[in-house]
């Protein structure tokens, strides 16, 4: 009997999702060799039978016979689905979308390079870091159309002369340990679909990032979906690198708590088309009590009940470009006197909370009710002795 059976269940589920793919790689050795041999043998037998049949029946291959049309790649259909469900992705791209800062900050890695190896093009591109952080040489590769490079055309236009693979998708490989990449796969930003929404009130910009994970040697999993990234002069936070699936965002939205100010919690929420307003209510702390942070220096701390502080807390915001910018005033939690050495001046502590989220359409009708998790800011005050 474990103390935290929910954690055991969650770990088991996570292990089921992530371990089998790895174990098939780790299995290696004799098993893999044996499997490979049996597949090769079966293939050889099939080819031999087919050859005998062709000779016996006197059939000849017909080179001019039209081949069946290949099914559209899964990526393309996922992309079309995203464009259909999130109107912001239909807006024209801007130079801001293509900032190299965006990709580096988003992946929390200062140097990034493109993957797979791009077509060669003469002349260095100083705006783009080289592969593995090495500055690009005189013949450094160029990853794709001009529109996707910083400082060039504001509106990306497909170039029919280029093959489709090079036209639309840009793959980004970031500076992470090789073992990490092998295990998890390669993150790939669909850079031509990145859209930026300025939020003047926050002095920030929200980026909607269609992202996928390409399979690697250690992970057969391919995921496609969306990430959010918020950049301002003071903060740069994102939900990535692993994206939320389109289905998840359609059902629950995609929230990102933005640590821009201590006086309130700011949350950017991405929702699909048709949602005009979002309302949050019934905030609950994930734990029944919170403690003041250890970095404040006062120990021991007396746990402060936050349930009362959260009662009646609500927030609402209009949706613009599929994004709602919610602001929640930091509730004040009263701590017993003497429990804090900061004299009640302590602000900026955050804790995990959940809230009921309601989506409303333009007519005010409820479209969906869901629950969201928020990293809620809280203020502490000290009660009189």
């Amino acid at each position: 009997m474990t103390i935290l059976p929910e954690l055991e269940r969650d770990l088991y589920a996570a292990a089921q999702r992530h371990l089998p793919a790895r174990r098939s790689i780790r299995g290696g050795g004799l098993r893999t060799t044996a499997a490979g041999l049996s597949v090769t043998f079966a293939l050889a037998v099939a080819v031999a039978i087919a050859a005998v049949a062709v000779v016996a029946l006197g059939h000849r291959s017909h080179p001019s016979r039209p081949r069946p049309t290949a099914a559209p790649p899964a990526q393309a259909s996922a992309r079309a689905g995203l464009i259909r469900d999130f109107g912001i992705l239909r807006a024209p791209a801007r130079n801001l979308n293509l900032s190299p800062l965006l990709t580096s900050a988003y992946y929390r890695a200062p140097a990034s390079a493109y993957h797979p190896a791009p077509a060669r093009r003469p002349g260095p591109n100083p705006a783009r870091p080289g592969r593995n952080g090495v500055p690009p040489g005189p013949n450094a590769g160029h990853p794709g159309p001009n529109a996707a490079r910083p400082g060039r055309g504001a509106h990306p236009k497909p170039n029919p002369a280029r093959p489709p693979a090079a036209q639309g998708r840009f793959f980004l490989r970031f500076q992470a340990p090789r073992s990490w990449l092998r295990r998890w796969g390669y993150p790939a930003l669909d850079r031509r679909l990145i859209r930026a929404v300025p939020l003047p009130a926050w002095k920030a910009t929200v980026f909607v990032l269609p992202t996928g994970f390409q399979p690697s040697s250690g992970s057969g999993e391919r995921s496609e979906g969306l990430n959010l990234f918020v950049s301002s002069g003071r903060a740069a936070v994102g939900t990535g690198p692993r994206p939320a699936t389109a289905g998840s965002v359609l059902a629950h939205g995609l929230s990102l708590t933005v640590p821009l100010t201590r006086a309130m919690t700011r949350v950017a929420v991405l929702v699909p088309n048709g949602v005009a307003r979002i309302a949050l209510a019934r905030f609950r702390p994930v734990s029944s009590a919170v403690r003041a942070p250890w970095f404040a220096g006062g120990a021991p701390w007396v746990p402060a009940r936050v349930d009362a502080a959260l009662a009646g807390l609500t927030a609402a915001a209009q949706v613009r470009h599929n994004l709602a910018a919610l602001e929640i005033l930091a509730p004040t939690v009263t701590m017993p006197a003497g429990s804090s050495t900061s004299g009640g001046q302590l602000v900026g502590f955050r804790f995990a909370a959940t809230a009921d989220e309601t989506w409303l359409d333009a007519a005010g009708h409820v479209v969906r009710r869901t629950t969201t998790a928020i990293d809620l800011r809280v203020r502490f005050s000290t009660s009189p002795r």
Partner: protein
Amino acid sequence: MTRAKAKTDEALLTGTHAGPRGFAAFYRRYERTLLGFFVRATGSPELAADLTAETFARALESVTTFDPARGRADQWLFGIARNVLGDSRRRGRVDAAARARMGMPTLVLDDHAADIIARLGAQQGPVTEALAALPPEQQQAIEARVLSERDYPEIASELQCSEALVRQRVSRGLRALRTRLAGER
């Protein structure tokens, strides 16, 4: 005793028994130990539960890199635990990145579980007892340097003594601990 329980920790992580069941068995073995470690370090059952969840999530993330030839599984797990604790102390909040990457939901802790975890913190192990038996200045220095992983200059400033003296106290304290624990065996 289940079949998985009879296996070594290393077999659960890397051997033929590795996989979701093996990792779950590994979790069951070390849940209490880790919760106790964290609750003693933080004094908070809620934080201890969060830190334990993050530690196991990180362990699951990197289980394929675990190599029994480089050390025991419990040492590997506690290495991760110390990193999680250090990261969380530096940032002022419990990191949840690994759990997010693994798609694990936020852990909800009920009062009953919190009570059990709090009691784990009150239990004294042989190391805790040996530590308590040390002179207060050595105890303080070891707690600050070894358990909290703070820098020597910072500890010296807090204790209002020289850095060399702190190093000496840590060194002598650890030697005394080793002697005492070896004697108990």
